[in-house]
């Protein structure tokens, strides 16, 4: 037997699902209610999440429990976080650029190594496919090599796309569009599964039409 809370929760979720889906018809008061509720609740949720799953365990609890050097090093991110609040005070608002610069620098620094190690070098390695004869596998490898090389030519910005570079770039954009088409179909199937999940909730949990 479901509790009253479960029943109310299911009906509320069902109503909000339908309210959001009503946007497919046009903007209406039910959608506005669901939208504002969603934005407000999610903003509040993330505030609590950051406070209790980031700031408290990673900053406050760590500061209280650690000893020695680790205890004081925690103060650096804490101070950077506090400096962000300097935006409230126009005279020292420029200080907030420091933590922003720190965040951007760390992101770019970690990103360049991760991308080289994780994407660029493995892809270059996977494209070095010598042709061993006249087999179907060789044809497949040749298409792959042409695809990678011409796509790189498309993304070359230092010269106008004319002559050999222009021809290569035109072939490159064909490869790009073919890959987009495949990706579109693949992702669409994933989205349909999400829709099925939502419809299952409506027909199974809410209306109990499906067994």
């Amino acid at each position: 037997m479901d509790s009253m809370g479960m029943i109310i929760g299911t009906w509320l979720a069902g109503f909000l699902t339908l309210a959001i889906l009503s946007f497919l018809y046009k903007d209406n008061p039910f959608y506005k209610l669901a939208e504002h509720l969603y934005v407000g609740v999610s903003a509040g949720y993330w505030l609590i999440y950051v406070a209790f799953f980031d700031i408290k365990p990673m900053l406050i609890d760590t500061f209280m429990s650690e000893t020695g050097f680790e205890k004081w090093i925690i103060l650096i991110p804490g101070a950077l976080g506090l400096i962000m609040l300097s935006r409230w005070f126009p005279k020292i608002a420029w200080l907030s650029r420091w933590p922003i610069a720190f965040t951007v620098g760390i992101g770019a620094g970690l990103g360049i190594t991760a991308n080289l190690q994780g994407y660029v070098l493995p892809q270059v390695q996977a494209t070095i496919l010598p042709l061993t004869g006249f087999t179907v596998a060789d044809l497949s490898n040749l298409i792959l090599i042409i695809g990678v090389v011409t796509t790189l030519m498309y993304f070359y910005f230092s010269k106008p796309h004319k002559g050999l570079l222009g021809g290569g770039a035109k072939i490159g954009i064909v490869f790009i569009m073919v890959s987009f088409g495949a990706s579109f179909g693949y992702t669409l199937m994933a989205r349909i599964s999400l829709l099925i999940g939502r419809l299952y909730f409506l027909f199974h949990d809410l209306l109990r039409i499906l067994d």
Partner: protein
Amino acid sequence: MGHRRLVATLVFLGVLALVGGSVAARPLEEGTSAPCACSVSANDVPDDGGGAISVSWDLATTDASPSVTRFEILRYATGEEPVSIGEVLSTNTDFQDVNADGGTIYQYIVRTHTRDGFIDSVPSDAALATAQWFAHGRAPSLIALILVCGSIIFFIIRAKGGAELFIRKIPGLDAVDDAVGRATEMGRPVLYVPGIETVSEVGTLAALTILGHVAKKVAQHGTPLLVPTADPIVMTTAQEIVKQAYAEVGQSDRFDPSSVFYLTYDQFGYTAGVDGIMVRERPEAVFLLGYFAAESLILAETAHEIGAIQISGTKETSQLPFFVAACDYTLIGEEIFAASSYLSHEPIMLGSLKGQDLIKIGIVYLIVTLVIAGSIGYAISPDGTSTLSRAVEAAALWLTGS
């Protein structure tokens, strides 16, 4: 009826497991024909940050030996009792202890389990987990990093020195001015959506750079601008950029800080909010630039529904098909970075783009050269045993430290 059978089967299997467990827990007597792990060796895992020791062994069996069910690895430091730290399948002959304390010397015993009991190996030699300064397998990454950074720094220095660095025009950039102009004529706002990620995401950074250009145009024409953000730091940065843009065209007094605002960090909460803004404020131009995920098509479709010009761009290859299908103009992948460099004419951004172009050309030459060399190698010796084929194969493997 079916449930009773299931319960009975589970009880039977449970009893079997208990009986089997009690048998397997019994040590075998020495001199039996039990299989045993021998030559147990323990060594520090090379090229790591410390804290890991690799344990390996050989399995000694005879025809009369019962089959091995699993291996259990026990560890002890000097003066301590051995404790179990993990198990592996009977087909494995190695184990990696990833919880070793640096500075503690350990020895390992491999316990071989059979259906009749278990037998312990002779302890391994002592091993110590240490950190290495340099991971040799990542040397190609270091070389690539030096080349990338070196070429970027070289071109930045050239750009700062006043050298004219050519960048071809990006298709779709003209549309930026047209879109702002059309919004001005129609007396409707421009909506700029800088994605759903934080400011450390490079796509967000490129989107914020383009925002500066759009904000200047908007300020010149006196068109309303709306910038909903999903991250507080992105909001702060976007406010700075828009404020700066208004100041640069002498329209500081017209800058409205509330035009750049925070909605929520929640992906679909943000999407619902932006969709609501689109249908109520009816912007004439919608910019979707930065990092996007599953919400890309929802936003692009809503912008299409209200009849706005949509200019989109992201480096996320999984979302680009949706933008290409639904938007008027799309900046594909790296074009978003090139566009920000083209618009800003900042020496650092121009130099960065030119440096990356040089690396791309290098990669094309590397691939083509090695493919041709390898193919010649196969032409010389079709079984791939020629020196050229082997050299190409070794070079390709070296790239990823394999």
